[in-house]
């Protein structure tokens, strides 16, 4: 064991202090302030006082249709996340762990959306989805499927599905890596044994791969739920929450309440709800997950 000497104690304090201070002042302190502010009303002017309003902000939140719509939109992100993105990521991870040629090319192609700035991606897709002359509608036109031509970002009924789909385009590659880390940790002998017993491709996946990926699937659940609660950039850039709030999510609602309408107390109460929901979900799911597949 290391003999404790005064210089070790001193270094320990000096080493921890800078990070601890920065983190506490700029991250923990704002969170506490934000929770506190959700019980106050404030117009954002430094000189004007905060007025204590009790649970008024939360009451307004519950009675506010916009907030429920924003939560419903998170719900649509979750539906896409579980019904489409999870199977897709799983299939992609099977592809990149299979023995086909050009694996490296496919892996790179699948992963590349993950590393691009979401702002750039969102602008790119906005052009692709343009109602007239955009690529998607042009393809529909050329293939003679005029019925499928849509105003993808302008139609309030469609936009709240379009954006989760673009989000899936971004996130599938990352989740593919999460799944493939789980897949490669499954011992090869299990498959060999199953082959001897006459199991074929799909049966092997269904009976061996999926059951053994239980922990990875739980990790995916945490990632998906917390990720969906935090969505901001893509909505902010593509639609600003529009048309008419149809694609708002809690984070954009918070942003506009605070920085456009100067309702700082109300915005803080949204922040508190996102915080609590996120913590509860990750603690709940984490309680059931206790392995470290990816700790390399």
């Amino acid at each position: 064991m290391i003999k404790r000497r005064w210089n070790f104690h001193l270094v320990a304090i000096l080493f921890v202090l800078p990070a601890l201070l920065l983190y506490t002042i700029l991250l923990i302190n704002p969170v506490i302030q934000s929770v506190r502010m959700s019980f106050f009303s404030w117009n954002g002017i430094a000189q004007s006082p905060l007025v204590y309003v009790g649970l008024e902000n939360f009451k307004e939140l519950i009675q506010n249709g916009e907030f429920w719509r924003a939560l419903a939109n998170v719900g649509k992100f979750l539906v896409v996340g579980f019904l489409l993105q999870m199977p897709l990521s799983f299939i992609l991870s099977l592809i990149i762990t299979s023995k086909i040629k050009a694996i490296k090319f496919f892996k790179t192609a699948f992963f590349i959306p993950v590393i691009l700035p979401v702002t750039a991606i969102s602008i790119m897709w906005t052009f692709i989805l343009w109602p007239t002359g955009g690529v998607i509608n042009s393809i529909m036109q050329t293939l003679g499927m005029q019925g499928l031509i849509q105003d993808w970002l302008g139609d309030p009924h469609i936009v709240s599905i379009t954006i989760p789909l673009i989000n899936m385009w971004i996130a599938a590659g990352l989740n593919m890596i999460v799944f493939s880390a789980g897949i490669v940790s499954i011992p090869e002998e299990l498959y060999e044994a199953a082959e001897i017993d006459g199991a074929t491709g799909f049966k092997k996946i269904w009976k061996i791969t999926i059951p053994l990926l239980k922990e990875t699937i739980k990790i995916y659940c945490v990632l998906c739920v917390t990720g969906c609660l935090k969505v901001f950039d893509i909505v902010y850039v593509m639609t600003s929450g529009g048309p008419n709030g149809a694609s708002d999510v809690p984070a954009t609602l918070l942003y506009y309440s605070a920085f456009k309408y100067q309702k700082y107390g109300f915005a803080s109460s949204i922040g508190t709800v996102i915080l609590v929901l996120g913590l509860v979900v990750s603690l709940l799911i984490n309680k059931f997950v206790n392995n470290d597949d990816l700790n390399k």
Partner: protein
Amino acid sequence: MNKKLAKLKSLPVYILASIWAVITLYPILFTIFSSFKNNDEIFSSSTSALMLPTSLRFENYVDAFTKANMLKCLFNSVVISGFSTLLVLLLASMVSFVIARLSYKINNIILIYFTLGVMIPIHTTLVPLLKIVNSLHGQNSYVMMVILYTAFNLPIAILLITGHMKGITKSMDESAIIDGCGPIRLYGNIIMPLTMPALSTAGILTFLFVYNDLLFGVLFISKKSMYTITLGILTFVGSKVTEYGPIFASIIISIIPMVIIYLMFQEKVEGGLAAGAVKG
């Protein structure tokens, strides 16, 4: 199994793989093509968006660099991301060294305290954060941006680096200390070199996150000469432009650094982002 049959069986896999590869790559190709086109070639008919450019109009890139000030934006982003990354690595490795190598009882609490940070949604902090930054007159400042990004990227870096440092054998320290090695040399000369894999992962992650971030730019930067790359392309799109080619060109300019980093450190980026996501 004979070879022909094996090939036949992998055919559906190739088809699936190719379909998704087209879906992920085509939007990027479309953007590259459009960055060389003029408005006519993009919009003249309903199918012109699908066509190849007739000639390579590099003037779109010149426009992006001059009219949208992309060069300055790129410079700002690289400077802010670079310094944030260095500061994160320095501060995080110092904390991790204490947590992982010096056995204090309080270490576990410190680690848990920092772990909380990865679970906090950034948006919850925005309103008070703006108040703090304004009271410090920290708008439009490189230093403020670097400090903010550092604070927000510390938790995940500390988790990754601590995890790795804990794996280094303890006998290292003991023999070094017997030889009269002090704590700072132990950190700098012995532990840090052995932590390089985790440092590079955490560094790449931080750089990526900071470079790709939009939110802090929107909130804390208003001066045009301070725009980061994401803020730059966003305002370029929002401004009343008549030519679309330069917009596509600026998108390509903004993604090139990330593509280069990814292709250079492919395994690191993939594993790091996955580990970062799972830890968070």
